[in-house]
């Protein structure tokens, strides 16, 4: 598709020339088109009956194609959440031509299309390949799309930009010959900031990039064995510092131990978190270290020159010198309270003077969390071209981010977003809810999840009230598989089946951030109508108990669960 939506820009470069996405070279292109043709042949073999559905299943999963309740679902990888405006427009086109006009952003920074036809999928994959995109390893028992901090390369608190390492891991894990038939799926997350925005401790492997202050060497603290699902665990630290050069070798060692010893008799016990916990962390880490000690490390050595070469894809965009304070921004805030409110919830400090990071909420009150229409995607692409170097990011909280917006441009940006239904001032607030597909799409669901999210958002629709409550993360899953991350919600909601009826349990005190914690169930569940009241009771209890400046989890940590329990269950 030509860039007909792009306004003429300040120069004759493509509008997204500086977007920090990895650009395919000839080698990558050869691979991606071969892979599309391979899948086309596989689909044909399946349609002709030459392979069984059972044999086709892992193949289609490895290409992102799931079978849901009503139809196939295609999950497209957004490597570490980075997109160029060209790619966003292509996603919009796919939504419009091959789907019902929208896409759904996931908690792993990917995008899903819910209604593609099997016979169209190879063509969709070709359309993606044309813009350096794919759906490889977005499902299946393989190493999945590596996720990271949505503010990387822009956040003021970042120590190391994780994208170059995420890209190295993406390449290393792509069609890995040894680790594509693992006991279970395998998720790696990486962050380079002390404020973990990538929830690394609830991943199979979590990496925290850091720089050794004295030597200047970059490396990773490696966590292993975290996960959500039906038995949630926080990851344990395997090593405090693995230098960059050694990281692939070290990961090979972890994966090899897991591939050989992970359980294959029960899919609910097959994740690495179970292996680590059944065996004991010390023993498991001991096995990794033994494996690593004998590995032919030279083979896996990541030459610093490779890092430098790949780093060029993530070069900072050409920021300009700006004053720290923008008069027009300050004036707009003073004049327009709705804008001022948005700036309080949806902006994050940028490391460069005069710029800001803007979060675009995909959680309009009453909407479906994470859904975006084709038109909205095109609007975002246009705005990215105009205001943020043609780059868009996807967050694990199912929102979008424009990472490099001049403060001077924020008011115009917000007005355009608001006109497109994308300007809700609720990032990080009570209506910025993560919800799994639940009964609306998922065959395993016990309960609805999306309608619960919608009704909570409607109950708290008043944005002033939301802002007054401050940061409060609600996460909802329609069954114990925990796709909606309920274990790490400040308020988690878990749908259970009680004699054929929907019931909802409340968990309190989960946290996906730096102080990662798993929430605890407060007591008996509530029915579909009762759960909304129960959430409000929890919130009102917090308001009564909070001290000035406290957010929900701080109050909870100070008071404990007792007053909340009492408020929920002592009602006559």
């Amino acid at each position, binding site marked *: 598709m030509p860039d007909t939506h792009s306004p003429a820009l300040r120069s004759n470069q493509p509008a997204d020339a500086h977007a920090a996405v990895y650009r395919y*070279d000839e080698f990558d292109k050869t691979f991606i088109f071969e892979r599309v043709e391979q899948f086309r042949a596989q689909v044909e073999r399946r349609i002709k009956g030459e392979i069984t559905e059972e044999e086709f299943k892992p193949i289609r999963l490895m290409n992102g194609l799931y079978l849901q309740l009503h139809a196939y679902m295609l999950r497209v990888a957004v490597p570490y959440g980075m997109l160029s405006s060209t790619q966003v427009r292509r996603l919009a086109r796919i939504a419009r031509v091959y789907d019902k006009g929208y896409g759904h952003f996931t908690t792993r920074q990917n995008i899903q299309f819910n209604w593609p036809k099997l016979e169209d999928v190879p063509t969709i994959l070709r359309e993606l390949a044309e813009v350096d995109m794919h759906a490889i390893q977005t499902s299946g028992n393989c190493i999945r799309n590596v996720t990271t901090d949505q503010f990387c390369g822009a956040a003021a608190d970042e120590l190391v930009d994780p994208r170059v390492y995420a890209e190295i891991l993406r390449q290393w894990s792509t069609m890995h010959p*040894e*680790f594509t038939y*693992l006991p279970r799926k395998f998720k790696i997350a990486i962050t380079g900031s002390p404020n973990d925005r990538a929830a690394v401790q609830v991943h199979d492997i979590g990496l925290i990039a850091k720089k050794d202050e004295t030597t200047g060497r970059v490396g990773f603290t490696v966590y292993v064995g975290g996960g959500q699902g039906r038995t949630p665990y926080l990851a344990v630290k395997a090593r405090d510092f693995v230098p960059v050069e050694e990281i692939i070798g070290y990961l090979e060692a972890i994966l090899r131990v897991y591939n050989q010893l992970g359980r294959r008799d029960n899919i609910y016990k097959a994740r690495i978190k179970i292996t680590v916990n059944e065996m004991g962390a010390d023993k498991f880490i001991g096995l990794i270290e033994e494996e690593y000690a004998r590995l032919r490390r030279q083979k896996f050595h990541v*030459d610093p020159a490779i890092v430098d*070469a*790949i780093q060029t*894809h993530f070069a900072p965009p050409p920021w300009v010198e700006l004053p720290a304070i923008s008069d027009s921004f300050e004036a707009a805030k003073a004049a327009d309270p709705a804008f001022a409110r948005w700036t309080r919830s949806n902006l994050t400090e940028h490391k460069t003077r005069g710029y800001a990071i803007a979060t675009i909420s995909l959680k309009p009150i009453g909407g479906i969390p994470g859904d975006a229409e084709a038109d909205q995607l095109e609007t975002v692409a246009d705005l990215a071209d105009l205001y943020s170097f043609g780059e868009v990011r996807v967050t694990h909280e199912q929102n979008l981010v424009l990472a490099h917006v001049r403060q001077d441009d924020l008011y115009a940006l917000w007005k355009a977003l608001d006109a497109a239904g994308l300007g809700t001032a609720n990032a990080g607030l009570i209506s910025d809810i993560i919800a799994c597909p639940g009964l609306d799409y998922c065959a395993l669901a016990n309960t609805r999840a999306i309608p619960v999210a919608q009704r909570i958002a409607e109950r708290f629709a008043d944005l002033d009230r939301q802002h007054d409550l401050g940061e409060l993360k609600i996460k909802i899953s329609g069954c114990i598989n925990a796709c909606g991350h309920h274990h790490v919600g400040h308020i988690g909601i878990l749908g259970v089946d009680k004699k054929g009826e929907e019931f909802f349990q409340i968990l309190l005190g989960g946290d996906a951030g730096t102080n990662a914690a798993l929430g605890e169930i407060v007591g008996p569940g509530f029915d579909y109508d009762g759960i909304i009241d129960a959430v409000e009771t929890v919130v009102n209890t917090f308001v009564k108990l909070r001290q000035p400046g406290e957010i929900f989890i701080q109050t909870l940590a100070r008071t404990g669960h007792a007053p909340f329990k009492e408020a929920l269950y002592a009602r006559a």
Partner: protein
Amino acid sequence: MPVLDRGLPIDDRWTDLADDQDIPAEGAVIVSLERWRTERDALTARRDAVGVRLKSNQLATEIADDLGSLSLVALEFPKFRDGRAFSAARELRERFDYKGEIRAFGHIIPDQYLFLTRVGVDTVVVPADRVGPAWAHALKEISVAFQPALGREEGVSLLRRHLKGTVPA
């Protein structure tokens, strides 16, 4: 059952012995790990080659000390989804420097064939009704590989290509 090498059926010299079958006086035989352990002397006293079958839950370490006497190690895929043998093959090659034949048998699909060759497997056993062009084709479908493995050492670590100035500006 037909044995494929580089995608094509070959004349196979090996006899795959069940545990209750007598050991023939002559000819190369493949036996289970258990039988190898109990009848090792009888097996090595013969002139002809011996191979051992490993189940998917039997790690390469189980036969590490015996590899000098074995001309073949056969790795089982009870279900194609059970990918333990991928690691077993690689351990045989990279950790134990095994130079003999590695064979994969059981439930294997063509889509795994390229991966098998990349972890050091030489031959695969497939049911007669599954022999077809898909196998040879599977080795050619994807011509690039992104990570170091076995066989195509040079240029295999795609990451290294970034050193050759091929990175687009």
